[in-house]
């Protein structure tokens, strides 16, 4: 397994932080449009 993927390209923000920002953004948008609440029903148990 090459190690090049865990190097930060161009000396920018760390990869894990980049992931968290993008991932957080995706989830925030999904939350704001209410996707989890619209798509996931509440079946009677």
């Amino acid at each position, binding site marked *: *397994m*090459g*190690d*090049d*993927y*865990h190097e930060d*390209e161009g000396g920018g923000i*760390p*990869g*894990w*932080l*980049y*992931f*968290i920002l*993008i*991932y957080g953004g*995706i*989830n925030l948008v*999904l939350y704001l449009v209410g*996707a*989890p*609440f619209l*798509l*996931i*029903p*509440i*079946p*009677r*148990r």
Partner: protein
Amino acid sequence: MEIETGGDACGEESSSPNSDPDDTPDVEEFPSSASADSGAPPRGRFGAGFLQLGARVAHVQRGWRWLPLALAAGLLPLLACWPLGSPAHQGLSGLALTVLVWGALHSGRAAVGLATILLAFASHSGLAISLAALAPDQIAGLFPDGPAYWAKQEAWIRSGHDPEYELASWLPVHFQLLGACFVLAPLTLGLAIFARGFYEVDLMNVYVGTLLRESGGAWGALLVGWHPWSICRGLCYVLLTYELVGRVGEWLTGRSPRPGRARTWRVALAFGFFAADCVIKSSCTEAVRSVLYASLVR
């Protein structure tokens, strides 16, 4: 994702997979070390970042350390929100569990990943049921929709009638839930399913806790309060979410699992639990209601 790993994805772990026996994956279908040609590179910085984060979490939960972490994910948010009377614990537990699952997927420890999910939900449920049974004045804040859910369930138990328990009513909802899992589990890497899962499980926990209180701790309420079909549904989505997040993780990171049948069996088991949920619910609802009714009116 169940990534081929053992290497130093975040630059902090030992490069020797055998230097610490705790780091050895406990499943057979994944290698304990990665080779240079074992997979494609991650998909951009996002995939590389996911790989780094998974490696960090896997390092923290190596060996037996996954166990207290799973308990913490299930219990600590609820304990922290208890004095505040806030329902934020459901999202926080969902987030913590999601991150722990990434770590288990990274290290290829499927048994640990699944046990983490089950333990987090079980410990959370134990505490939530206890709170609902022993501190009913707390539940309105912690579980805002719980009391209304209990009222509907109580009406069903006492009357034996509820349109929502008719096949034509609940079957489409079950398939919608299945479809939602296939969309949201990959899209949110598990977060939406786990966070929403804690919310839905808490509806049930408030119902069971209140049932225990109202029935004076009757055994019937304890044994079937968590309906058998509901448990099947929970197990279905534990397995399915784990596999779906794993597949997306593989795609993101470029890692690939060793060939094996374990994953196929897990997917088959998930659909088996889905079928069991439908079959048991359609055939045993009245029997379960009778036990609950006897507990409630004794």
